[in-house]
């Protein structure tokens, strides 16, 4: 999952960024509205956390333009102002959710999970498929009831593949959704993480879960 955090308050932006990275998200930050639109134009985000009170282009305008440009992901608005009129305006402009500052980081994380579940057409918070049990709330993975210890990045990879079960996911798409803008597309990052993930998944189990389809990508 890749998230764009748009927030002009540096201490808040960096805390959200660090927190989400710890949870296994790929995170980019923008400090004003224009920068946010620029990044959203270049990269693919699953969720945008958008402060309303932004320099240059304000949050409502960013939201409107994102939706005009057919940005398909989720938008969570963050603001210190909490009037009902503003909430309605925010939601009507295309936001999916709304959080009033100061909010708990854990609540933001839960709302991001809820939105990404909705985007994937999922209702169940825990994903069960092919003997795998993936809980994005805790980043815990089990195979046939046995816990597998994965790093946040490995979990994100597996979760992404599980959500797109049966479809070959190209390496570029994984790079887009699971790594942030600082990842170098020409390195072997995806391959290295994928090898580690496979090794951990197969330890003690016979069947190979993730297959590689040459020229197409990885499939679960």
């Amino acid at each position, binding site marked *: 999952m890749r998230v764009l955090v748009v927030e002009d308050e540096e*201490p808040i932006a960096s*805390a959200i960024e*660090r927190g989400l990275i710890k949870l296994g998200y790929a995170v980019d930050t923008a400090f004003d509205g224009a920068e946010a639109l620029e990044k959203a134009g270049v990269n693919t985000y699953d969720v945008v956390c958008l402060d309303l009170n932004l*320099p240059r282009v304000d949050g409502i305008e960013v939201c409107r333009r994102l939706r005009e440009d057919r940005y398909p992901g989720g938008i969570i608005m963050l603001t*210190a*102002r909490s009037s009902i009129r503003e909430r309605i305006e925010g939601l009507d402009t295309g936001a999916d959710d709304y959080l009033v500052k100061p909010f708990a980081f854990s609540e933001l994380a839960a709302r991001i999970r809820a939105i990404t579940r909705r985007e994937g057409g999922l209702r169940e918070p825990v994903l069960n498929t092919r003997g795998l049990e993936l809980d994005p709330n805790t980043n815990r993975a089990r195979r046939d009831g046995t816990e597998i210890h994965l790093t946040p990045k490995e979990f994100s990879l597996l979760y992404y593949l599980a959500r797109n079960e049966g479809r070959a996911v190209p390496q570029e798409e994984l790079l887009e959704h699971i790594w942030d803008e600082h990842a170098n597309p020409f390195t072997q990052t995806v391959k290295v993480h994928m090898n580690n993930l496979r090794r951990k998944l197969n330890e003690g189990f016979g069947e190979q879960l993730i297959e590689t389809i040459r020229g197409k990508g990885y499939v679960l």
Partner: protein
Amino acid sequence: MLALNVAARLDQPHVLVLEGVGVNDVEWQPVRSGPGQAISGFEPVVTPGLLLKQAESQIYSHNLDRLRIWSLLAVVGLAGASGVGGYVLSGMMLRPVRDITEVASEISATNLSRRINHQGPDDELKLLADTFDSMIGRLETSFAQQRQFVQDASHELRTPLAAIRMNIEVAEMDPDIGGDDYRMLLDTVKAQTDRLTHLSEDLLLLSTNGHDAFEPEPVNTSGLIREVVSQLEPLAAARGIRLTVDAIAGVEAFARSDTLYRCVFNLVDNAIKYSGERATVTIRSRSEGESAIIEVQDTGHGITPEDAAHVFDRFYRVDKGRSRREGGAGLGLAIVRELVQAMRGDVALMSTPGEGSTFAIRVPLAKYPAFP
């Protein structure tokens, strides 16, 4: 029958004359004789004296009775009519007063939209009602501003609180957090509490201004400017800004020295923070007419006319991103204006985009303390 006849005769003057003569019990009647029936003499008419007296007294008492009844009726009628008339009239006259009372009793801090809207002649009551309406209008505006101020203030307070909370929570997520992370967390919390302290001081200043008794004293402006400059010199040096002073000695303002210090400090502090590197900030003081003038001029980016119209508004920021990084809440210039006005002065801005801005504080001179 007799009574009525006599009563009719009462109206006839000659009978009255006869009575006036007072010849007891004798009535004289003219005697007519001859072909022309001329009056030839008088002969007495003998009537029973007792009867006449009785008739007379009956006539008097009857008339008095009638008079009494009519008078009583008239008095009662008049009293009733004047009571009803007075009631109706006073009700009409006092209706506006009642309306005013009613509206006044309905008004509270949360319901200031009520008005009397008195329709009627241009009299004292109309004037009273209109004055009352305009007073409620002013109160409504003032309450709305106060509410907006509290909202803005709470918004400004929430942001540093959110930063503190978020940083603590994210640090807590990491079970094996190291010393460096802790140090970073503490630095953030410290910076944000500094910001909260600064903000609460500013808010307090804005809310108490005007309530303190204004006791002006002569203030030496050039001394005050030198104090401000020595205080802000390190900040200016760190930003690569040159501070110069051009103060005429002996200009004494009639103000409060700590308040005026705060105003000049805010202007210079602003000029240092928003003028950009290698700018020069010049602080001047002089007298002009009956006023002392302190000017803070910078060679920064200048301010557009749209922004200039709002720079003295509370919570207004010209460059939001920059202001945030400086930890400003957009209160510095609002404080300057309100404090200067409380000292019976004013503050003005002249700016040319691209060339720089000049803020000028004008307060009464100590020699002319009666400046309006």
